[in-house]
């Protein structure tokens, strides 16, 4: 039996893989999407919207959400972030925009690779078996969602609780109201990683109400 390759999550985007390599280089501990925070519930109390920050840096007690989409497409992510901060004021999260990532690449002299790591072209990179081992993910904080697991030598990422449309497809980025953008960016990204939907979420009718902030209760 050959030696097992180091565990490395399947990053949804090349920019995430690059950030992971940068953090490794500077010996900053990180975990990839270890926690999912519910941020929207229907009137029955079912979670219909959630947010899974890309990285958690345990030494800093900081989440990092990386988005390299164009700024005008980041509005919904900003809204989710505001809601997350309203519901969970104790967590610290930093949103890394496309501009931030661009500056990071500029700083490290990696501008030539930028086009391959941002926006739609950076989606769904293949695993990099030569990368160093990833930090072991911690248990989810609030929902039994994506802990990196290894079964019979295969690395899998369990699916988080997400919303779904009437056809049972996962909502884009977990948002019932998220429109399908012309490039299908979010649908493709989340669809790849979060194919399975919980029975409750899949059964939700289209246009499910999301509880207002004051009524919202974390599960």
């Amino acid at each position, binding site marked *: 039996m050959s030696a097992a390759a180091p565990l490395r999550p399947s990053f949804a985007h090349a920019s995430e893989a690059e950030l992971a390599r940068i*953090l490794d280089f500077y010996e900053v501990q990180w975990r990839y999407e270890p926690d999912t925070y519910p941020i929207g519930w229907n009137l029955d109390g079912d979670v219909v919207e959630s947010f899974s920050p890309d990285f958690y840096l345990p030494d800093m007690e900081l989440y990092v959400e990386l988005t390299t989409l164009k700024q005008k497409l980041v509005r919904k992510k900003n809204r989710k972030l505001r809601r997350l901060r309203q519901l969970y004021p104790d967590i610290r999260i*930093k949103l890394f925009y496309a501009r931030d990532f661009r500056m990071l690449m*500029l*700083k490290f*002299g990696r*501008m030539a690779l930028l086009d391959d790591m941002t926006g739609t072209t950076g989606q769904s990179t293949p695993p990099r078996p030569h990368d*160093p081992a990833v930090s072991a993910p911690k248990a989810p904080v609030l929902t039994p969602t994506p802990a990196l697991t290894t079964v019979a030598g295969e690395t899998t990422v369990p699916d988080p609780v997400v919303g779904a449309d009437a056809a049972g497809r996962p909502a884009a980025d977990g948002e019932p109201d998220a429109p399908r953008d012309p490039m299908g960016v979010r649908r493709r990204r989340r669809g790849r990683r979060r194919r399975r939907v919980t029975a409750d979420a899949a059964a939700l009718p289209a246009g499910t109400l999301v509880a207002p902030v004051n009524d919202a209760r974390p599960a």
Partner: protein
Amino acid sequence: MTHTADLHADIGEVLLSEEVIAAKVAELGRRIGADYAGRNLTLVSVLKGSLPFMADLMRQIALPLRIDLMEVSSYGGTSTESSGLVRIMKDLSASIADEDVLLVEDIIDTGLTLNYLMRYLRGKNPASLKICTLLDKPARRLVEIPVDYVGFEIPDQFVVGYGLDYGERYRNLRFVGVLRPEVYSTAD
């Protein structure tokens, strides 16, 4: 890289003039001199960007201080570097045990390098370890580190000069300027 032959032609805006920098360095020097009076101060500078700042700052501190230099490799995305093998390219030349160490930086943005250095230097058991930076770009901070002496907080722009480079150039500018985006947007 598409820099022009004229050093100044690639600069879109002078952010900090030579005079403004000199005044701030003098002010920092006075503060540090007062704070460290009667103590064994060692200034540790990180090559190469901090070189002009270090050279000016140490001459503004009226104490019998020591200096030392380090060089740390930057992330470049290669597999060698990702393996964590390349780090300290030049280590301290003398022990800093029981010394009051002030790490002198040119700029702090993400804080990644500084975070690494602070952990490394703490392992050498200095009596104290603080940070002095000429420029601080807090908008881009990823790793929060308390900075004791800050010259200027600057906006989130790519700056060069007074030690700061782009592709190893522009360090010799006497001011801090904003590099014209077309210089790096068409690079490589």
